[in-house]
């Protein structure tokens, strides 16, 4: 065995705090090492040529590169040695940059540690086996989870690119949060007017199969070949027959149902179509409020429905779809106002959230666009907006900025002035965050042209006094306390992860951060990919985002799916679990612990019961290998012996 060792300087990144020449010299002394050198930038083209030349010249068969994290350049160097004729798994990287050079300043100690790391990599590479990828076919259909603006954009772009799309939306209509907004910043164009055509396209596109009021029950499989179980929740209305005429909604006697679409601003009927532009425009019964379900008699809708679509006996239905890639666009949720006790929680009817105010402004909202106080339906004259209601507040677990609130508050202040010319808006803010195109000009316009009073400071308390709400806060620019007698208070509640985000992540095997937002593969360079290949992210499920960013990410995710599907075959990673059937005792512990259901029971010709790994399903996580008591199941490229050789190397130094 002839190992070649290449120590990278990474400019001064590594060479600054590690004596690279000494590391190379020490490596040369290790048995099996035929060649060791150090180089300024090993990842550069001349650096890679150096490796290729050395393989030929020195007849090397295993390569160790001591440089940065393998996440950075492992692929680069694998390709390099492959071009020189070696199996690409005959490469090991020792991470002497992130793990060593960047974390300590003591050159002597760093150098010792780097020598340890390199000797481990040498021990490992000598145990490496040549591995070969296999290829498999892909199913060129895509699942989009979530029918908000990001999901719809991804679905439309994929469908326009010729792919069959399965779009699953958990509420009865697509559109998401954007469908509930009145106008959009900074151009003040009507939200539903620009979104409506997209929603219609989604509903009518021959390549898009829309499952509204449905949820993902189970996801099985792997990139290229997923089996998805979708739960079509019971609507108690046969959507094949429902024409969306709205007669049932008109006659329904149960008038006090919670209106999810309007965030409870006003009640709705137990059978309802969420909003006039809904796609699909179909009615649905809320069994929590329907008299037929609660009292067992009523049946008004069934009698009135001209097409006989009502079916009180309807049950949830599970359908299976097969796809090759998944775009996750599950959006975000809003902080529960009840947490904000200093602002009264939800005790005061005239303290509402930004999205509720949006519904009051909206011409198709419950007040037909007339701004009214929820308490006495009078027109408010003094309106206070409180930004960062929960956002940037470590104490309630939301240390981050929700991003879009500064902008929508400015928009709502402008619209308020439009609706009620003699009104006065006050905005309490911490900082104005408006870094988009035309955004800062917009917030200035709210102040300069529409006379919104911006007060830099936080609100400490909101309490009622007669018919008014007293908003007490600080004006940090004047250095005084301020109290405003308001008719209506609007809280810009923080954007949080969507309900059930964590459970969804577990179904998808993707990671999520401490706040429940999904984690992209690389924060800068792979913003729509996840670490699970075949699963892509779009929109606010990855973090709070405004409409332009969500749409951009939706298109980006679609581009990723289209480029993935431009190939007919995919290569599987050979670094997966493999069973040594001679050693396997058939206890099948591995089968029970595998998070990917990649292991099945198999019977050998001798009748012996053993475990078997489904190659394409295995993600190479290694849970089975640490579960197997006799070491019969081994993760290729990370076998027990390979890891033990690293341990031995470091213990013998």
């Amino acid at each position, binding site marked *: 065995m002839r190992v070649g060792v290449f120590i990278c300087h990474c400019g001064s990144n590594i060479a600054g705090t590690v004596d690279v020449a000494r590391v190379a010299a020490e490596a040369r002394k290790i048995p099996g090492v035929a060649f060791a050198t150090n180089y300024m930038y090993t990842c550069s083209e001349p650096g890679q040529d150096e490796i290729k030349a050395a393989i030929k010249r020195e007849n090397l068969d295993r390569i160790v590169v001591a440089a940065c994290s393998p996440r950075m350049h492992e692929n680069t160097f694998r390709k390099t040695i492959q071009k020189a004729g070696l199996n690409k798994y005959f490469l090991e990287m020792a991470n002497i940059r992130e793990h060593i050079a960047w974390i300590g300043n003591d050159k002597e100690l760093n150098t010792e540690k780097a020598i340890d790391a390199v000797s481990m990599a040498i021990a490992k590479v000598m145990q490496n086996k040549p591995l070969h990828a296999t290829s498999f076919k892909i199913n060129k259909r895509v699942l989009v989870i979530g029918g908000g603006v990001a999901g719809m954009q991804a679905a439309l772009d994929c469908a326009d690119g010729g792919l069959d799309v399965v779009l699953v939306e958990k509420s009865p209509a697509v559109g998401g949060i954007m469908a509930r907004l009145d106008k959009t910043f900074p151009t003040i164009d009507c939200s539903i007017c620009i979104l409506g055509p997209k929603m219609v396209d989604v509903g009518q596109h021959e390549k898009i199969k829309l499952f509204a009021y449905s949820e993902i029950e189970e996801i099985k499989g792997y990139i290229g070949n997923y089996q998805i179980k979708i739960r079509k929740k019971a609507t108690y209305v046969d959507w094949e027959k429902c024409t969306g005429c709205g007669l049932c909604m008109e006659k329904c006697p149960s008038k006090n149902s919670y209106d999810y679409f309007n965030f409870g601003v006003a009640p709705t009927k137990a059978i309802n179509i969420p909003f006039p532009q809904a796609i699909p425009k179909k009615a649905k019964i809320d069994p929590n409020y329907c008299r037929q379900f609660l009292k067992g008699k009523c049946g008004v809708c069934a009698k009135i429905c001209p097409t006989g679509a009502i079916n009180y006996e309807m049950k949830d239905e599970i359908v299976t779809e097969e796809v090759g890639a998944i775009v996750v666009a599950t959006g975000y949720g809003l902080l529960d106002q009840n947490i904000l006790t200093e602002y009264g929680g939800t005790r005061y009817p005239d303290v509402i959230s930004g999205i509720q105010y949006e519904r009051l402004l909206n011409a198709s909202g419950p007040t037909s666009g007339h701004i009214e106080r929820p308490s006495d339906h009078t027109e408010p004259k003094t309106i206070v907006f409180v930004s960062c209601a929960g956002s940037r507040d470590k104490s309630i677990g939301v240390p981050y900025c929700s991003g879009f609130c500064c902008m929508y508050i400015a928009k709502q202040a402008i619209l308020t002035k439009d609706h009620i010319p003699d009104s006065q808006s006050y905005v309490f803010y911490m900082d104005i965050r408006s870094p988009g195109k035309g955004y800062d000009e917009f917030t200035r316009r709210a102040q300069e042209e529409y006379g919104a009073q911006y007060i830099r400071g936080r609100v400490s308390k909101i309490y009622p006094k007669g018919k008014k709400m007293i908003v007490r806060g600080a004006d940090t620019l004047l250095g005084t306390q301020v109290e405003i007698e308001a008719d209506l208070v609007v809280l810009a509640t923080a954007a949080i*992860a969507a309900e059930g985000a*964590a459970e969804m992540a*577990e179904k998808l095997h993707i990671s*999520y951060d*401490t*706040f*429940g937002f999904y984690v992209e593969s690389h924060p800068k360079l792979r913003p729509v990919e996840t670490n699970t290949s075949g699963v892509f992210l779009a929109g606010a499920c990855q973090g709070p985002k405004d409409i332009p960013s969500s749409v951009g990410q939706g298109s980006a995710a679609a581009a990723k799916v289209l480029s993935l599907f431009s190939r007919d075959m995919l290569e599987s990673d050979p670094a997966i679990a493999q069973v*040594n059937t*001679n*050693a*396997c*005792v058939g*206890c*099948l*512990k591995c089968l*029970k*612990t*595998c*998070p990917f259901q990649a292991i099945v029971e198999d019977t050998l010709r001798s009748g012996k019961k053993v475990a078997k790994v489904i190659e394409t399903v295995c993600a190479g996580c290694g*849970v089975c290998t640490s*579960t197997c*008591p*006799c*070491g*019969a199941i*081994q993760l290729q490229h990370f*076998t*027990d*012996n390979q890891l*033990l050789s690293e341990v031995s190397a470091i213990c013998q130094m």
Partner: protein
Amino acid sequence: MSTEKLKEIILKVLPDVDTVIGWQEGFDKIHITPFFMKSPEDAEKAVWNSLCVQNLAAYLPSLKKKTAVIVKGCDSRTIVQYMQEGLIDRSNVVIIGIPCTGVVSVKKVLKAVDYQPIEDVKFSDEKIIIKTSKGEKTLAIADVCPDKCKTCQYPTPIVYDHLAGDPIESTKPAESVYEDIKEFEKKSLEERRDYFKNEFDKCIRCYACRNACPMCVCQDSCIAETRDPHWITQKLSSEEKMMFHMIHAVHLAGRCVECGECERVCPMDIPVAKLKKKINSEMKELFDYVPGVNPEDKPPMYTFNVEEAKIKEHKL
């Protein structure tokens, strides 16, 4: 409980099964050995007394034909664990349970009579009377029982098809089970390390503990003896011995049914069950799980959950 009642049951189940596994007298009066009964004549030779120490359930996973097995309360936990792990087909096993008030540690008895050859053994009223060439010695069973009997929670088998006798309730407090572990943990890290080093240094690597363990599934593929993967060498160093016992303990995490067979068979008197008991106490703490008590339980190490209730990794 009389041996007669047990024989009655054996004769009743014999026609339905291939073998009934029980006990018979061994080479001397104090040693009882496992007994594989095939015929009514065999059944006549079956015995039951406080010397029936072996955990006969351990044979079950390797038997293909329908088998009946006689178990004490503690042994029945093995069967429950087998059911949880899918290692036996319950419909292929007939369980004859025996309510047991405690067995005798042969090691302790032999020590008490100074290792004299045993001429006769008699039982009377929770006492054991040993006759050697030097005379008779009467020992209270409670004084010479294995440690597991002192905190026994399951004197009556947890699962059975036939019960030879009337069920009995445990009189030992549940908290007492892990008292010895808690006591041991009060020692300093150094003391504990030295203790285990000394104890495991006695190990001759005969693997009797592993071979007697009913929950050891690997049999001839034990990684203590394989080259691939090569976790430990055959060297007789204390590191290798320690490593072997650690591996056995970790392989039993959340699976050890505390039958104590490992300690019973150890020729060097090493307290090999201690590590396993410690892990069991942790399993109870972390997962509220006790191995081998409920056939419907799912062993925590046989599942994969991203979140565990008592292990805080993600905070949401």
